């Protein structure tokens, strides 16, 4: 039987204002976890029942460590940020499908927006060939060094212009004539929608990691649906179970 695990926190640091990186000693899942999957974190904040879905950012099989990076946006992530090294946290996972890495693909474009960047680190680690990473942030970019360490060429845009190009990922895309076998992306929905359009126009396949409010996280409650289409038939898929990663052409974007 699968189960929730109580796992030990071995690191929990603020890497940028309001953004934390947490390392979990999580032997049970490092073997099976894939880039693009997520875990359900059960935080101890008072009156809170639902788990917080957070993407896996890195998997370290030697050290049995799972890394996640999260933004403090509400009471659950606040409670998480206050946990100390040595504390235990209840976690369920790995959940969801993760990115699909086609064997024959050689040229990869990876696009992350804000707190959508973390799951792409493990992805880049897994990719072989030419990897270009495009990251957009409001300000204060994160994880740039990690992406570089795994051999990617990194392009950054910030809305305040503090680092890289002033603007967002869409602005970089407009300028470039990207050649790639596959686009992988995670970030705010308007960005993903723009990528989907770009991918269609340029005849490139794109994978998008979607986000939705969840309850169970395992496909039982139908809380987290995403409208998708197969040929002309529109269908509700579950972001937690059928996703979070979808092919951009599957997703019905106009809502």
């Amino acid at each position, binding site marked *: 039987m699968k189960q*929730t695990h109580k796992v030990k926190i071995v690191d929990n640091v603020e890497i940028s204002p309001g953004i934390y990186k947490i390392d979990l000693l999580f032997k049970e899942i490092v073997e099976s976890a894939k880039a693009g999957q997520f875990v359900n974190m059960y935080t101890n904040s008072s009156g809170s029942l639902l788990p917080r879905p957070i993407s896996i950012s890195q998997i370290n099989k030697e050290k049995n460590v799972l890394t996640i990076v999260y933004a403090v946006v509400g009471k659950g992530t606040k409670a998480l940020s206050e946990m100390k090294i040595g504390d235990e946290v209840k976690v369920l996972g790995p959940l969801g499908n993760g990115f699909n890495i086609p064997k024959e693909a050689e040229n990869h474009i990876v696009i992350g927006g804000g707190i959508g960047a973390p799951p792409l680190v493990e992805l880049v680690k897994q990719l072989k060939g030419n990897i270009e990473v495009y990251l957009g942030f409001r300000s204060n970019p994160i994880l740039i060094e990690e992406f570089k360490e795994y051999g990617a060429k990194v392009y950054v845009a910030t809305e305040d212009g503090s680092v890289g190009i002033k603007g967002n990922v869409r602005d970089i895309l407009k300028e470039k004539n990207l050649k790639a076998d596959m686009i992988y992306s995670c970030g705010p929905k308007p960005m993903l929608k723009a990528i989907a359009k770009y991918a269609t126009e340029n005849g490139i396949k794109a994978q998008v990691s979607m986000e939705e*409010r*969840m309850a*169970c996280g395992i496909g039982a*409650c*139908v809380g987290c*649906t995403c409208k998708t289409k197969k040929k002309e038939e529109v269908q509700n898929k579950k972001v937690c*179970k059928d996703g979070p990663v979808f092919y951009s052409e599957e997703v019905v974007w106009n809502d």
Partner: protein
Amino acid sequence: MTNPNIKVNIAEVELKNPVMTASGTFGSGREYGEYVDLNKLGAVVVKGVAKEPWDGNPTPRIAETYGGMLNSVGLQNPGVDEFIEKDIPFLRQFDTKIIVNIAGKSIEDYCEVAKKLIKADIDLIELNISCPNVKAGGVNFGTDPAMVEEVTKAVKKVAKQPLIVKLTPNVTDIVAIAKAAVRGGADALSLINTLLGMAIDIHKRKPILANTVGGLSGPAIKPVALRMVYQVANAVDVPIIGMGGIANGEDAVEFILAGASAVAVGTANFNNPTATIDVIDEVKEYMDKYNVENLDDIRGKLL
């Protein structure tokens, strides 16, 4: 531990224990079946099914609130035909009872689902009357005693399996509704469904749910659920399945003391995937502690 007798009987169907899943929180058991041994459950109550597939509401459909959550799933389901074809064979692999929750927009809709289930290998039907009656201007079936009696009677007439009627708490007089369901022929009652609620994102100045309102469930509603079970248990003679915020054995025992024959665990699954099994074990622990041999010895027995 001694082995207390926790079998219960709901309309001639014997459950090995009083713990079932609350409709809509457990799918058809497939997903949670990876976390709990479905053979250990008294019954699996499946997600509501309708005559045809329903799309449900737009997202966000989920909002957490203090001690509870709101959902506006809107009864998305694949329709009864697909359910019969795919989910019943799956569930029948397990030694547990199958209770099918049915939804409809008109009396004819409900009857059609019940008819399609005549030949299906299931144990009980649970009629979810917290649905708008399209032919009556969208008034919720479950809020009007006359409509409750009428829909219960109509479905009872065509259904082959015993009928549980599931009551909505969004009424002024739950006892009047319960009595109407019993007059209509309900073999058992289950209560409560979710309480209508709302949550607002003050930063966006918008409701969190795309549907604006949704059903509140979880520990926050337990006192209301318990009160309603208590009132109804004292007013009707059919067995009652109590639910609303049950997360552990103590919660379940409270409902049994209030008069419930069985209980259902819903929202708690989201917080703890093995909540159903934990509830069963903890009910046994309670019985052990107080030397209760038989659940009947405490059911409705407040001192």
